[in-house]
């Protein structure tokens, strides 16, 4: 227990990381998004031609596709003023923390990432601005044939493997910001787990945005071959800065027959980040994809973990915990697309709205005709802590298969005066009582997280609520 304690952030990311320390950029491309900008990025990355062309096709799509009209906060983003590619002063991803420039290394040290790595990760890829700056994989992973690489390196070294999956799970044509992502992607990690290889120690990718008016577009691709197992953890954070930055990342998962992929995200951006995260997986026969998302930070977040259940007996779960505290918005919702018989899915969405926060659940369960006996259960639980805060639930079911069973449950809860008084009577302040009740609300999903991450999440929530200026 004692060693785990040192892993817990004692304060919020803004406080841990403080104000952004100035870091120098080796290369920075800012301004209007054009063909030549993309050519430049591709050139800097020394990419194969197919990738350059893929980017340019995505650019054309980006220019054609309409801006979704339901997205709040986009009007705030002026793409022409953003730096779309920022290469920090690290030539190549390094393998030891000492090799990183001090200002960069300190960010990760403050967040306790090196300790986490030592304690429980079998591989770690760390990104600063647009590039991977640290990447290290434990030897046994390589011995088992697992490939874990910075995305760019995977593109160069395993072009055929990458080409087979890259944007095949999440095509850029899906929406404007997916197209933008593919046109400008930079950084992220690639993981391939060979047939039958099971890796129980998680691998992690951590993303940090260190400055204002930056756009970060990391691309994560996880391929689990038949019968394999992998747990990928994604974390992100940012210090405070003036103005805003923009994150438009993408995660693609391909789970081959009978494989299992767990994908966990702890999103703790500072309040300066507008966050779009495009996440999608394909599950083949008997495969399973489990998403967990702890959506804590950021100014506005849009994220919809989705699974396409393509093979018979594939299954997926998505657990999203979203906290909107203060004048911030979390727009989220899981999507499950059942394309084959005997597929199963489960969605759990828990939202906590407080201090004027807005949570939105926008989910989808689709069952096509022929996906016999498909089953899906959706559970949305909203906890609203005061009258200024809101939770909206927009579940959407599209069921074309008569033998399918799709069920939905939605509850909205409040914290009762009697509950608060009871806990105060036991010696807790109103804030502590609230935090205990919020933790109680999340209790059942905490069980799905690795211990250290559950502790991190607990602590973050404890701190968030310790600061509440009198609830109710």
């Amino acid at each position, binding site marked *: *227990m004692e060693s785990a*304690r040192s892993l817990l952030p004692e304060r919020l990311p803004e406080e841990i990381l403080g104000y952004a320390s100035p870091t120098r950029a080796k290369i920075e491309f800012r301004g209007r998004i054009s063909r030549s900008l993309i050519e430049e990025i591709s050139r800097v990355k020394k990419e194969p031609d197919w990738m350059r062309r893929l980017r340019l096709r995505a650019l054309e799509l980006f220019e054609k596709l309409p801006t979704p009209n339901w997205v709040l906060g986009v009007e705030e983003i002026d793409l022409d003023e953003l730096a779309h590619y920022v290469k920090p002063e690290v030539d190549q991803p390094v393998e030891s923390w000492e090799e990183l420039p001090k200002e960069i290394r300190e960010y990760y040290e403050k967040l306790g990432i090196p300790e986490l790595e030592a304690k429980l990760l079998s591989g770690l890829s760390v990104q600063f601005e647009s590039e991977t700056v640290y990447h290290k994989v434990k030897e046994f992973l390589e011995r088992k044939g697992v490939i874990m690489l910075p995305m760019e390196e995977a593109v160069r070294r395993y072009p055929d493997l990458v080409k087979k999956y890259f944007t095949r799970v999440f095509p850029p044509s899906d929406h404007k910001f997916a197209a933008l992502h593919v046109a400008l992607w930079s950084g992220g990690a690639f993981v391939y787990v060979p047939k039958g290889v099971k890796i129980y120690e998680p691998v992690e990718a951590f993303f940090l945005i260190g400055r204002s008016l930056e756009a970060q577009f990391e691309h994560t691709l996880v391929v689990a071959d038949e019968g394999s197992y992998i747990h990928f953890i994604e974390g992100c954070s940012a210090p405070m800065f003036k103005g805003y930055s923009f994150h438009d990342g993408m995660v693609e998962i391909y789970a081959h027959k009978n494989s299992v992929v767990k994908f966990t995200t702890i999103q703790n951006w500072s309040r300066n980040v507008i966050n779009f995260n495009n996440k999608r997986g394909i599950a083949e026969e008997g495969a399973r994809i489990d998403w967990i998302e702890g959506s804590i930070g950021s100014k506005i977040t849009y994220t919809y973990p989705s699974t396409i259940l393509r093979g018979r007996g594939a299954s997926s779960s998505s657990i999203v915990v979203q906290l909107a505290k203060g004048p911030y918005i979390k727009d989220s919702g899981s999507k499950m697309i059942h394309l084959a018989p005997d597929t199963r899915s489960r969605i759990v969405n828990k939202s906590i709205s407080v201090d004027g926060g807005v949570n939105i659940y926008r989910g989808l369960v689709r069952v096509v005709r022929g996906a016999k006996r498909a089953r899906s259960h959706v559970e949305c639980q909203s906890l609203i802590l005061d009258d200024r805060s809101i939770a909206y639930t927009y579940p959407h079911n599209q069921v074309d298969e008569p033998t399918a069973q799709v069920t939905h449950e939605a509850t909205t809860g409040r914290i*009762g*005066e*009697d*509950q608060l*008084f*009871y*806990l*105060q*009577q*036991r*010696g*807790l*302040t*109103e804030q*502590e009582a609230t*935090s*205990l*009740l919020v*933790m*109680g*609300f*999340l*209790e*059942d999903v905490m069980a799905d997280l690795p211990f250290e991450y559950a502790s991190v999440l*607990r*602590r973050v929530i*404890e701190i968030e609520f310790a600061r509440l200026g009198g609830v109710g």
Partner: protein
Amino acid sequence: MPELLEIRDLHVDVEGKRVLKGVNLTLRPGEVHAVMGPNGSGKSTLAYTIAGRPGYEVVEGDILVEGESIVDLEPEERALKGIFLGFQEPPPLPGVRLSSLVVAAVNKRMGVESLSRAADPRIFRKLVEALQKVGLGPEYAQRELHVGFSGGEKKRAEVAQALVLDPKIVILDEPDSGLDIDGVRIVASIIKELRDSGKGILLITHYARLLQYVKPDSVTVLLDGRVAARGGPELAEEIEKKGYTAVARA
């Protein structure tokens, strides 16, 4: 020496309604003081007011703990001064395990900042022992508190907390209602244990049965927010025989 608990001419409004109309009462360490009275006479109101429940407004009088007024203190400050209330009807706390609550409460008493990590690892054994004393299995430590608890289980879980949190003043609001015969015996023996360890106990009850097992040092009868009668254990028996109104008239 000041009394452990002294209630002086207490007038209390709830929702604009005068519920207590001049209550006096004292409690000493190692003493059991029974408070009886018909439904709606103000017993729970007295308990809540001592514990500082929001909405229970002291309009006149004072409550002193060891000579110091506590009426301006927050409920948690009173709790940390050693006031414990076993609720007549505790609310369910979904997702909050009894053990998590006890860890948080004990950490607070030890001045530890984190609420989730037990600062004193012995607390778990203490809790299991307390549960055993009240006739609940160790699995109740991991149950969500008061969620799906039976009436009797709720009472037992309340009393168990009084054992673990080591207060000075234990207010038990009808710890016997809804309990089976064995349960009443158990609660009585715990009250004795608490008393013998020097705590002052304010015992709200309707039934003389509990008081047969644990002899109160004094009995106060409330009627319509006022003290209608006061005496020793014999008063409880008299009430059992004649009813509240007759005793109050006498």
